[in-house]
């Protein structure tokens, strides 16, 4: 791409962002504050929340929940999936059920979790965990399935030890799939986090959104949504980065 084309590209992007900001600001003139707030007020509200420290404390509370649930999902999902690369019968027996749970909308379980575990940190972590563990497990098992039996037979024929088999065949073959799963889990876990903060005990960024909506503080509501949008974009980029970093030989698929 030539310099001219690149400049034109940057200019278009800058123009589109400016246009978006202008539309956001101007559209507020034509609606009441109950529906929409201009960008300037939203940013003011955000600055106010940042100054008073609520933003930092709420974001920290959300991230603590998110990180705990996601870490548990990875610690449970990836090793279980890897184990199924080695134990073919266990994989064949369980893969249909894992696929079903992967396709299940986990939000549907929130009311059960609420009435069994009540309010607190643990039930919310469970929600984030349930949202994110099945993508990791499902994709890792897909990876396990992609290992052709011939590869293991050849490794055996060359008398490779159990450790070598894991290091040279099983892990390299399943890792890219596990990374795809972790990327999906990063996105789904965020949905789980907001859902848990909405429907279990209100906390964190979810609570900020709820409070904004209940108090008809549309600027505060939009500010909290904006924070979640930025968080979502950052996490998705991070997920894509780790997928490429740890499994560069696999083609990127959504």
């Amino acid at each position: 791409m030539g310099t001219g084309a690149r400049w034109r590209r940057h200019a278009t992007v800058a123009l589109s962002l400016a246009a978006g900001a202008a539309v956001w600001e101007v559209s507020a003139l034509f609606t009441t504050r109950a529906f929409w707030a201009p960008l300037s007020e939203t940013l003011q509200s955000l600055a106010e929340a940042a100054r008073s420290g609520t933003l930092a404390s709420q974001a920290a509370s959300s991230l603590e929940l998110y990180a705990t649930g996601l870490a548990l999902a990875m610690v449970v999902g990836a090793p279980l999936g890897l184990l199924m690369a080695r134990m073919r019968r266990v994989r064949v027996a369980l893969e249909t059920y894992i696929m079903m749970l992967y396709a299940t909308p986990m939000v549907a379980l929130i009311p059960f979790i609420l009435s069994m575990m009540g309010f607190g940190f643990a039930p919310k972590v469970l929600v984030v965990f349930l949202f994110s563990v099945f993508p990791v497990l499902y994709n890792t098992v897909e990876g396990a399935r992609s290992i052709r039996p011939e590869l293991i037979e050849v490794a055996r024929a060359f008398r490779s030890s159990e450790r070598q088999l894991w290091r040279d065949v099983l892990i390299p073959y399943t890792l890219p799939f596990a990374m795809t799963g972790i990327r999906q889990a990063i996105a789904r876990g965020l949905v789980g986090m907001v859902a848990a903060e909405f429907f279990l005990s209100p906390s964190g960024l979810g609570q900020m959104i709820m409070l904004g909506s209940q108090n008809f503080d549309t600027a505060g509501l939009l500010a909290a949504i904006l924070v979640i949008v930025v968080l979502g974009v950052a996490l998705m980029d991070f997920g894509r980065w780790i997928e490429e970093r740890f499994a560069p030989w696999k083609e990127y698929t959504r």
Partner: protein
Amino acid sequence: MSIQEVALGKAALRHAGRSRSALDSPVFLKLLAGLALLLVWEGVVRALAPAYVAKPTGIVKVLVRVTGDPQFLAAAGSTLSSVFAGLAVAVVLGTAVGLAMGRVAPVEQGLRYYVNSLFATPMIAILPLVTLWFGYNADARLAVVIFASFFSIAINVCDGARSVPVAYLEVARSFRARPWSTLFDIVLPSSLPYLIAGLRLASGRALVAAVVAEFFISIPGLGYFILFNSRTFKHNEAFVAVIALVIVGVSLEALLNWVTRRYLPWARRD
């Protein structure tokens, strides 16, 4: 030697020295595992949980009554029609926007940041805003379903439209094809596998969106059915609705896989 004989020979070699057992049959293994999972669930609930918690025997007992209940059927119909209507709107709008983004560079540069960031945003976050706009009714649910599914379709169709082989477009140009026929006869068909991939992602998201919206807005539907029954400690009844959601989720996935295999055999993943 025919191919079949070679294949048979290979299988025979693999099994040489190992007696064939029932454990080699995938169906048997799956049934065994399913039974084991149900037994564990039943046992754990009986031993540790209060009586109201859902367990397989309890669910079986209420299954017939709940699935025959007009209220349950109405709830299922309401959720499903909202999901399908939302997906239909998202497919039409998402394909249009995706094609425009994929083929017209300024459109792509202008919309990319918005589409990508809203794709990355959990749609639950905008739920309170949507209820401010539409009120606490079924329109808000439909809006959330559309919002949840639109962006994954637009992004995938855009990727598809961008990866149309240049040779096809060059042939079209040498035959002086009109822009519309290039779009509908070349770009759209070759983006179809991407559209289906986007739709697969979108259908899962749409289902989650519908359930979450029903929790939040309290309008009749499977999500509200679950909420209502679990609040009154009828977990077995509530779980029937979860099973219905699993069936819908799995069948949508299976349907899209089947469509890909049947009509787009060149785009198979496996």
